[in-house]
């Protein structure tokens, strides 16, 4: 009986036929259907509200009505499977990519991917970044075989569209900045939360390949090779300088050091 109650209420709350649940509910002046509506609205509006709070740029781009309708379809197709809303919404970018009404905005899924990365970065583990002195005076062989851990908040989002420019132009807390040329070259974004705030930085293809290889546990010599392959103009010293100042690295080891970091949003 309890099984039947919970199955029918779940169906009624997330877009299914409410008849079975309504038949189990006692009504009086206020009908059973209207009583269930309270719970249906709580479930749907609260989950849509979580997505609206976490994807404000996506929402601003498409407008509130479109976003709400799309988010509702997403909630039906992908309700949270864990009771932790800090981790909800990771599948929204892929859902948008396959959502026919969003087809006129081919960059939308990648903008949402960037926002998912921001959320993940915000709640990622804390760590102390390496200081330059931590890497001073290494022997040649040691330096080449050095494995660096990325700060746990690091995410890399690459897109054929100018997603950082779009993100900047559509921040809910900022005034409009004019038209964005969505045909401009694609952008790769380093998302991180080294201090208290999440920051977004455009990085080049060489740097992206370098950090991805570092995050995969590859030693410096291999990561540098991967970077040069992606961008023949890659400058290892400049990149290392940048990231030491930024605080991108948070630990060291040597080849075979068992760590592997997933940088996807």
């Amino acid at each position, binding site marked *: *009986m*309890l*099984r039947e*109650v*919970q*199955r029918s*209420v*779940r169906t009624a*709350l*997330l877009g299914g036929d409410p008849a079975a649940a309504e038949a*189990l*509910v*006692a009504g*009086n*002046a*206020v*009908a*059973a259907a*209207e*009583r*269930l509506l*309270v*719970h249906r609205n*709580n*479930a749907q509006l*609260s*989950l849509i509200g*979580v997505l609206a709070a976490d994807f404000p740029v996506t929402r601003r781009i498409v407008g509130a009505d479109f976003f709400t309708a799309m988010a509702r379809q997403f909630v039906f197709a992908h*309700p*949270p*499977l*864990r*009771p*932790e*809303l*800090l981790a909800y919404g990771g599948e929204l970018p892929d859902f948008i990519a396959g959502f026919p009404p969003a087809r006129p905005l081919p960059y939308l899924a990648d903008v949402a991917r960037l926002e998912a990365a921001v959320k993940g970065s*915000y*709640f*990622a*583990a*804390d*760590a102390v970044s390496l200081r330059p002195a931590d890497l001073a005076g290494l022997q040649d062989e040691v330096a080449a075989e050095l494995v660096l851990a990325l700060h*746990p*908040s690091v995410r890399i989002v690459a897109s054929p569209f100018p997603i950082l420019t779009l993100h900047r132009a559509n921040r809910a807390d900022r005034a409009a900045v004019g038209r964005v040329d969505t045909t401009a070259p694609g952008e790769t974004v380093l998302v991180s*939360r080294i201090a*208290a*705030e999440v920051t977004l930085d455009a990085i080049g293809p060489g740097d992206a390949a370098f950090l991805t290889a570092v995050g995969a546990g590859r030693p410096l010599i291999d990561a540098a090779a991967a970077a040069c392959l992606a961008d023949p103009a890659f400058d290892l010293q400049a990149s290392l300088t940048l990231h030491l100042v930024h605080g991108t690295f948070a630990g060291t080891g040597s080849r075979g050091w068992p760590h592997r970091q997933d940088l996807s949003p």
Partner: protein
Amino acid sequence: MPATSATIPRRAGLGLRQPHMADFLAGPQPVAWLEVHSENHLADGGPRNATLAALRRDYPVSCHGVGLSLGSVGGLDRTHLARLRALHDWLEPGLVSEHIAWSVAEDGAYLNDLLPLPYTEEALGVLCRNIDQAQTAFARQILVENPSSYVTFAQSTLAEWQFIAEVMARTGCGLLLDVNNIHVSAHNTGFDADAYLDAVPLGAVGEIHVAGHTLHRFTGGDLLIDSHDRPVSDAVWRLLATALARTGPVPVLVERDSEVPPLADLLAEVAAAQALLDRAAETKALTDAA
């Protein structure tokens, strides 16, 4: 990490919400203890938990879970139990509480609402088994909160207060008495709030919640919605006084979750709750002396 004692005092506390975190970080506030929603702090790191860690040094903290789904027919999510246990080990909360409700469906979908149980022997068995499992996993007693009801089931065979009394008797858990929920449910499902207070096991009360509600009109009548978006109503303050007169002083929490006003507004409600607690303490002292 915690510097302050974990014990929740029998005084008025406040539900900690994002808009007030800066106020609490800026300096001491006249609040005896804080309560957080456990699930909002199940992060690996980040500023939100850093803030909570800082506040925990100065305030006793209670962990109020909203996602464990104690009424789920499919049992509890072991991963979630473990994550909550880790949070408790970190924060050392003075109290741990959850709800008499379900929110996770059989297929694992989390519906993000506190959904009602039918009051049957079967549901009682499921709820008690899950509470036992939670108390074992947490290695401590938990409090469970009476629900705010909009829906009742035709199949129910027990009154809500009978159901609750059985839960306490079978599991040894405590009662988080939400007097706003009593007021809301009394209106929506047609029972007398004072009679409810007569019938629930007040000896098991470990904490009381007060909050605001909203009237919503439907075609055939109206329902009170447990919206937590406005000040505590006079009727609910009266219920708090009635409850405290019988329980004596217990920890009382003011909750506001939406339309959150400046902290000062909520501190006034905390002070009002404390005044009722002070009066209950005086009454109890007189009774004890007599």
